[in-house]
Structures are given as C-alpha cells and as structure tokens.
C-alpha cells in the first residue's frame, strides 16, 4: 500500500481520513447534525454510519452547545470524538462549551482529563449561501488559550491534517474551507503525509516579497503570485499557514527577514484578525528587516454580505497583486 495515491477532492479526502482513523482506532467516533444517515450536508461523513454503526456515528438533535459539551464528556471518558458543527457560524452556539470546557479541561483537571477531540466545521464564503453561512472567525479560537486551530487548503493537506488532528492529544478546531470542498482534486497518498500541527508550509519560494494565506485564500494568493511573476517579474514567496494556532512564527520570520515585504490574506474581519497577529510578531522579530508596511488584504469589519455581492467582498488575486505592488513600490 505504501506510496499508493488516489485522486480525491477535499470532501473525499476528509471522508477518507475519518474512515481510516475510525477503522484504526475504536475510540474515534463522529457526532453532529445530519452526520449519520444523511452523511453530512456536505457529505463529509458519507457512508460512515453504514460501516461503523449508530454507536460511533451519532446523529444528534439540533443543539451545538450539547454537541460540543457531550463530545468533551466523551473525550474525558477516553473516547476520541470528532464533532461536526454544520457551519462555523453556529460555533457561536457552542462558544461557552468550547472556551470553558474543551479548551480548559486538561488544565482544570491538572492533566487528569486531556481533551483529545476535533471540532470540524466548514467556514468561509463563496458558495452563494444565506446569512451566517459564510463566516470566517478563526481569530476567535486563535485568541482562546488551550485550543489548536487547523485550516487545510487542499485535499492532500486536509487528509494529512485531519489525521494529525484526530491523533493529537489536545483539542483541535478544524476549519474546512467549504469553497474548496469540491473545487479541485489532488493525488492523495493513502498513507497520510506526516504534516505536523504547528508548522506552516512554504508552497512557493521567492525573494521579492512574502505572501501569507491559508484555507480558501490560498487559491487567489497563488494566482496573484503567478500574475506577479508573469506580469511584473516579481518573485513572491508564498506561505500556507495550515495551522493558525499555535502559529509557525519561525517560518514567517525567516521568510520576511529575507524579503522585507509582506502581504497577508484572509477572509475574516480585519480588526484583531490573524493578519494583525502576524504583523505584531513580524514587528517583534523581523523589525530591522522590514522595508515596507505589511499589507492586510482581508475581509472588512462588516457582516458578510448577501451572496449576490460576496465575490466583491472576498479578497481576490487582483486585490492581492495591487497590495503587493504598493508594498514593492514603497521606499
């Protein structure tokens, strides 16, 4: 089997990771709204109930707070629950259980009850959804001590990172870029890549400036990198964060110390977002190398707009290129 790969989209890759971990470890179980018979509204848990039964694939009542709360209880007992919140906008309903129990129980019990669980949820815009279905509020969780926050950008790293998250001894908030779910396929190794949580990936090397992004924003960012190279002869280094928290500060500092210029891209609101934190860390550790203000290409501090205009709200390659040009022009 080793070395074998399969062409999968992100939904299939996530489904495969769940299937593999469930067959390898009886403690892994899945719970959430419509994850069983329906296979999840995005079909990420499709077929699992037939294979593992209602005892390990649990269709729950419509109550996010209890979904997370009971999952933490299961983890306390020694299970490895993977809880699904149908859309990240509804993690608000479970905020108390996430912050007060999921993130704290190892500490409160003085290491007696680690919470080895994953909270999976689709986030972000781009699928013409109604209000509350396009949010990107990963910064809430990055600001919450005790959690890890992971966001894959493609089928291959989604497969690897979900494996790593389920096997992680600590609670992981796993944000899935729903715009990428079926956007493209990749050759995914049957044996997951050994990606460590907490490490970012330099997906493209360059010396002129550093572009930082994650999740669904990787596509416009890589597009922008292409345009910059083709139209402007600029070599952008592109970093895919993969883990939002704990963030791979070293990789970011190393890159920007070399390039001196940086543009950070995310969908979520700007104020106190992930880009702000990255800027703060670069200011602390790469200050003397900065040649220009670090640019933020992010969502605005407004409610995610109705879908007829979402394309304009979302960061796109042009806007990233514009920001990069301004950064490069700065003296």
């Amino acid at each position: 089997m080793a070395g074998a790969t399969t062409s999968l989209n992100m939904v299939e890759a996530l489904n495969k990771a769940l299937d593999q971990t469930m067959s390898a470890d009886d403690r892994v179980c899945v719970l959430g709204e419509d994850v069983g018979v329906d296979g999840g509204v995005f079909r990420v848990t499709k077929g699992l109930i037939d294979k593992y039964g209602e005892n390990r694939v649990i269709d729950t009542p419509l109550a996010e707070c209890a979904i997370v709360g009971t999952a933490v209880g299961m983890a306390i007992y020694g299970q490895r629950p993977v809880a699904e919140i149908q859309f990240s906008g509804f993690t608000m309903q479970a905020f108390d259980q996430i912050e007060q129990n999921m993130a704290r129980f190892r500490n409160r019990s003085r290491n007696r009850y680690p919470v080895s669980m994953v909270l999976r949820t689709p986030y972000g815009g781009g699928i013409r959804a109604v209000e509350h279905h396009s949010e990107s509020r990963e910064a809430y969780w990055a600001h919450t001590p005790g959690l890890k926050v992971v966001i894959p950008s493609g089928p291959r790293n989604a497969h690897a990172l979900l494996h790593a998250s389920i096997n992680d001894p600590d609670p992981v908030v796993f944000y899935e870029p729903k715009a990428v779910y079926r956007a493209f396929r990749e050759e995914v190794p049957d044996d997951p890549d050994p990606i460590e949580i907490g490490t970012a990936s330099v997906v493209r090397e360059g010396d002129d400036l550093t572009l930082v992004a994650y999740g669904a924003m990787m596509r416009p960012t890589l597009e922008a990198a292409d345009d910059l190279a083709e139209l402007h002869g600029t070599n952008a280094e592109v970093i895919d964060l993969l883990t939002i928290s704990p963030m791979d500060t070293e990789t970011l500092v190393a890159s920007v110390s070399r390039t001196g210029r940086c543009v950070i891209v995310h969908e979520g609101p700007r104020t106190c977002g992930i880009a702000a934190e990255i800027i703060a860390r670069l200011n602390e550790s790469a200050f003397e190398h900065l040649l220009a203000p670090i640019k933020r290409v992010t969502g605005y501090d407004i409610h995610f707009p109705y879908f007829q205009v979402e394309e304009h709200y979302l960061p796109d390659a042009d806007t990233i290129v514009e920001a990069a040009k301004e950064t490069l022009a700065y003296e």
Partner: protein
Amino acid sequence: MTTASNRHLDTAARAKASTEATVRKNRIELGELENLQILDENGEADEAFAPRLTDEQLLRIHRAMVLTRKLDLRMLTMQRQGEMGTFAPGFGQEATQIGQIFPLQARDWFAPSYRSFGAQLWRGWTLEGLLLLWDGFAEGFAVPDGVNDLPFSIVVGSHVPLAVGVGMAIRQCGDDAVVLTNFGDGAISQGCVNEAFNFAAVYKSPVIFVVENNGYAISIPTEKQAATAELARRGPGFGIPSIRVDGNDVLGMIVATNEAVERARAGDGPTLIEAVTYRMSLHTTADDPKVYREDAEVDRWTIKDPITRFEKYLTGKGLLDAKAAEQVAGECEQEVLAARERFRHRAKARPRQVFDYMYEQLPPWLERQKREYFEKLDRKGVE
C-alpha cells in the same frame, strides 16, 4: 419573602401525614395526549368547535394557502433554472402557516423562522421581496412599512428570545399587542429556545410559540430529535399551557391560536402550540430527502394535504366548486408570475451597499475600509 421550596415542604409534610408517600406516587407522569383536529382528511368539520368565520374570511384563507403553494412551486422551478438561490420550501405546511397568522392583528408582532412564506405574505411582505431576499439581494429583507415583523431568522431558534423580549417590552409599556413566533421541531432542542420558554413563563410575556413539527430537521426525524412522542409536552415543564394541533387543519390551527392570542392579550402569558404537519418537499433546494426517507411516507401525507382538505370543506359548504378553485389557482399563478417580472427588474446587485446600516454613523475606521473597497470596485469597473 417566602420561597417556593418553602411552600413545597409544607405540602410535603401534609403528604407525609397522609402516609401516602411512595416512590411511585411521587413520579411525575404525563397522561396520554390527543390532537386537536376540527377538520379531518375528508374535509368534514366538527362544527361545534369550528371558528366562526364569514364566507369571505374562509375564501381569503383558501386563497392565501393557494398563493403560498404557487410561490413555493414557482421558486423551485426558478431555482432549478438557476434564477433563484437556495431556499426552504413550505409545501404541505400552508394550513399551519395561515392558521397561526390569521388571528393576529396588524398591531401584533410576528417573529418567523425562515420557512414562513405563507404567514409572511399574509402579514404584508411582498412576493417579489421574498424572491429578492432568497436570491441574495439584501433589500429583500427590508421590513415593509406598517408591518411589525422581524426579518426571519436563519439561525435556528435564535429569534425566539427576541420574540419574548418584544413581549416583555410590550408589557413594560402597557401596550396590548401580542407576539407570535414560529420555529421547527429541531429548533426546540436549542438551549436558547428553552431559556426563552422560561423567561416567557416567568414574565408572562404575551407570546404564542408555534412549533411547526413537520417531521424533520433536515434528515433527523422528530423521533430522534426528542424522546417524547409529542413536543407540546415541553411546555408544561416551564409552566406554559400547551396544546397539540393537527397542523394540516387550518380551522384547528385558528381555534388554538385564537385561544392563545386571547390568553396573551389578557395578560395571562405564553402558550405553546405544537402544529403536527409534514414537510412534503425538500429541506432546502440543497437537500435530497431520498437519502433519509421513503416516498411511501410522503404518500401517506399526501392524502392529508391541507389545501385539498380545506377545498373539500368549502365545497361542502357550497362556497367553492372545481371551476372556482381552478380560477383561484390561475389568479394566484398570475400573481406570482407578475411578481417574478417585478423581481427580474429589481434583481440588480448593489455591491456598494455592503457598508450600509452597519451603524447609524459609519466610524472613520470603516469609512477608510469603505474607500478601499470602492477603489477595488472602481478598478474592477463594477458599479
């Protein structure tokens, strides 16, 4: 001040004195529960309990249900043809909708869930407005003048505490309006809905809670949603008078809601009405029910159809015949098609509006982001 538990123990003492205390006796048990049904599947009504309605009212109710269904079907076609966003069909719940909203006065308030076409149209929302909002145009959410409604909530159950709060404010101000809010069999599992039940009961908020038990929360059948066969059982635990109604019986819905409205207006607080109905169509246009339910089940409900049933009733009363019914259907269809035209003319994306209504006055920081955003639109040549 004496406390509740205080009083209890006195009762307890008495109980003990009568030396009747046994574990069994002290269990709380609920008796069997029946459904209120006035109009049965064959269109026969139990006139003793039927609401007193004029012929005009009966016909208006009929037309409203037909219009609701026409909109529903048209939107599905539009969605399949790519000119409508994902939406939540109400097919089969027309009696629940019109029956719950009929007893409300204009001065009353309505806090609907997203599956509330029928009631929203009755309240004065326009057909094209509903088309606009479901197709992702913000303006569709603009509450029509003179309509005391909340825009429907997308977040399941999140509007229920708001309804209770509106009711509390009504009492604070000494006004006599009431508030009706509806939600689904899934929503009743939400913590905030249960918190809202408790607040409503404690403050005697003039609220009518209508739980539209349409059998499913997406793929989850009501029997997996709760351990009690009936959702109306939830109410008494909070001190809320509760009743179950055949939700496909528009007369039963009107009678039950009337009583609840009277109670609320009289200052006697909230009522929980469980409307037992069925979601004949998709959860939303993104859903495939075949994955989780059998057609045979849907068929069993087709014979309970709320409109057919009511038409039989009207026919029996000599208020409707096949020809008249056809005419109503045709007129409603035309109304919907006319609205589609208005919708098509108004369906214009307005990307420059996204910063509107964030605050009464846009703060400098957002003004700056707005400029940045407009420059982006200018670059893209977008109006």
